[in-house]
């Protein structure tokens, strides 16, 4: 009897998570598919989802692909722009996060926990609120400008909020950098100090130790961190909306958001979304594979 109940216990414990996934991932995803392959009401221009896969049509997909690769490819600029912004932001995030994570892992000692909590603390405030705070700081007569101009001594007046790509990239970095720090910290913290000492004993210089021991051993953390920040950045739209609001800095997220709100184009929005998903699935897949491999290795 006890055995029997145990046989059902573990699968039963998985039911909530499966139900959760079905309810909030699988079903919505199916709805997106049905909208992407559905039709448009000719008068109200709302989408008519095709619930039956046999009725799926590829019109909306074709339009979307045409706008990316066709003659009038105005979907392409936001896509290339997004890739540029995200690559820049990820690289800078890594440059910022690595030393922070390294020093927390190696030198924070007993206060590791405290340092980590302090690093994460600003993120208890919602992303939106933090971006709105930046809007205040970055105004033409805001604090940032008065600091740069040394309180009005220098004739510096940067109009940060008027469609500047660097403001958006900065916003992205600020918004997502903790997601880079935490996995990096986890990877660096796992490197045993005795390995580093051994390297030094065998004659490696400090830089050699860093280059030949620390870096290779933190690669999974770097990969995880880069993925963790790149994925949400790719879909982000309110950073650009709040810190710029100009079409000149529209990203894929803005494109999808705008397309959904445009009557008659939710099908194209769904198609765009699926394409982004397909593209993002590749690095995700690579990442899970490297993680699985490194785990079997260790």
């Amino acid at each position, binding site marked *: 009897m006890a055995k029997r109940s145990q046989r059902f216990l573990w699968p039963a414990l998985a039911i909530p998570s499966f139900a959760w996934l079905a309810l909030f991932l699988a079903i919505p995803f199916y709805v997106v598919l049905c909208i992407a392959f559905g039709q448009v*009401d000719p008068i109200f221009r709302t989408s008519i989802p095709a619930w039956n896969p046999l009725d799926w049509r590829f019109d909306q997909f074709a339009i979307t692909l045409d706008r990316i690769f066709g003659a009038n490819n105005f979907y392409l600029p*936001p896509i290339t*722009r997004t890739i540029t912004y995200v690559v820049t932001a990820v690289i800078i995030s890594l440059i910022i996060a690595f030393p922070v994570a390294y020093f927390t892992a190696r030198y924070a000692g007993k206060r590791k926990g405290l340092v980590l909590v302090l690093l994460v603390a600003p993120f208890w405030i919602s992303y939106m609120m933090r971006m709105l705070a930046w809007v205040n700081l970055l105004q033409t007569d805001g604090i940032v400008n008065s600091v740069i101009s040394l309180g009005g001594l220098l004739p510096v007046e940067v109009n940060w909020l*008027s469609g500047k790509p660097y403001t958006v990239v900065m916003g992205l970095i600020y918004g997502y950098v903790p997601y880079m720090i935490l996995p990096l910290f986890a990877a660096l913290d796992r490197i045993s100090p005795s390995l580093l000492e051994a390297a030094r004993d065998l004659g490696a210089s400090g830089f050699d130790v860093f280059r030949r021991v620390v870096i290779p051993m933190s690669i999974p953390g770097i990969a995880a961190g880069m993925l963790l920040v790149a994925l949400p950045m790719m879909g982000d739209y309110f950073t650009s909306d709040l810190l710029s*609001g*100009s079409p000149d800095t529209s990203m894929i997220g803005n494109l999808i958001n*705008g*397309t959904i709100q445009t*009557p008659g184009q939710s099908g194209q929005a769904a198609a765009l979304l699926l394409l982004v998903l397909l593209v993002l699935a590749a690095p995700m897949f690579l990442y899970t594979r490297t993680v699985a491999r490194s785990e079997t290795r260790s």
Partner: protein
Amino acid sequence: MTDLTGDIARLGMSRRRILQAALLAGPGAMALAACARADSSTPTGTAASGAATLQIASPTNPVKWPINPGNEAIASGLSPEKDAVLRLYNYADYLDPGIIKSFEEKYADTGVKVELSTFNDTLEAMAKIRGGSVPFDIYFPSYDQIGKLVLANLVRPLQHSYIPNIANVYPEFLNPFYDMEWQYTTPYTLYTTGIGWRTDRVTEDIAARPNPYDVFWDPQYQEHLAVLDDYREVIGMTLLRNGGTDVNTGDDALLAAVRDALLQMNEKTQPRVTITGYTDLPEGRLDLSQAWSGDLIMAVSYLPEGVDPSILRYWFPKDGAGVVNNDVMVSLKGGQNPVLSHLFINHVMDAKEAMNNFAYTGYQPPQVSLTPEKLISDGFIPPNLQEAIVLPGYFDSGYRLLELPPDIEAKYLAIWQQFKAGA
């Protein structure tokens, strides 16, 4: 295997059910509407040619909408519903809470409670009303949605005997082109679309330019300006700037010129695209913005303390040849309180209540008692913003953003999307 077929069968089922629902809510109603139109042999407008078509009302083609069978106006003299919840559906910040309070007090013996829900744009609102999950009683759209609302049988015709305050508004609204004989609508607010700016930041007099719309392409204002986040307003403004007079055109050459001009605007001035100009301008985030007349009147109250309201200016063509529109109130068929709906609509058009609402929203009601001279002499509107007052004559001289046939609407949206993508 069996599971899979079961799934498909179930999906097929739900699909059929959804089709049925869609048939009832959408096309079915359209077919009904089309029949109704054919039967009642409407005096104006394009006749329905078998399939349901959307009638487009315009000043040159005024439309008297059909009364769909089974959707006649309520009888006069009914007593209001008891202990009801009257549900309003409106933009945010677009109705004075004082009006709600005074209505509840006036009809306190019926125990009425008013509940205000808000939407961000009318497309979203329309989807929700069509969905029918909330029984909204009164909706405040622009007149360009009336055709769809009637077609889908979502609005209720008005019983005029409950609305004596119609006498307070401009007489043209007793027979507007978008709803002849005001069968479904009463006017709510009036507004023009022009340019707002701060004279402390912009030194030139924009109104003195030969073509003031050109400021949006003038690199000296680069990064300090905005256009409205509204595809009809921006495309309409660009059409006027290019020398056109038809802000509803479907002409491909004109629209191609609009697209080129908008992409050029992106390049030259990198405008923000927003409808929060009424706070951005007074708070200094913008120097110059395409704006609705009500935005500038509202902006006065958002000025930081100590800033002189006389720095705000608004421009609308002196000859009245600009974009001018109005919003309306309709009683929705899905609402549960037809009598109270009529009473509320009447209440909003009361001269005193309308004035309070104006003070709260900045959007002018079409009250005959409101004269421009009085608005300025009462100190209600500072003299530097007198161009933000909507004059009755504008409705003859101005251009109106009409409902677009779906194929032309698609062209407009494609241009807008390309502009917003920053391509």
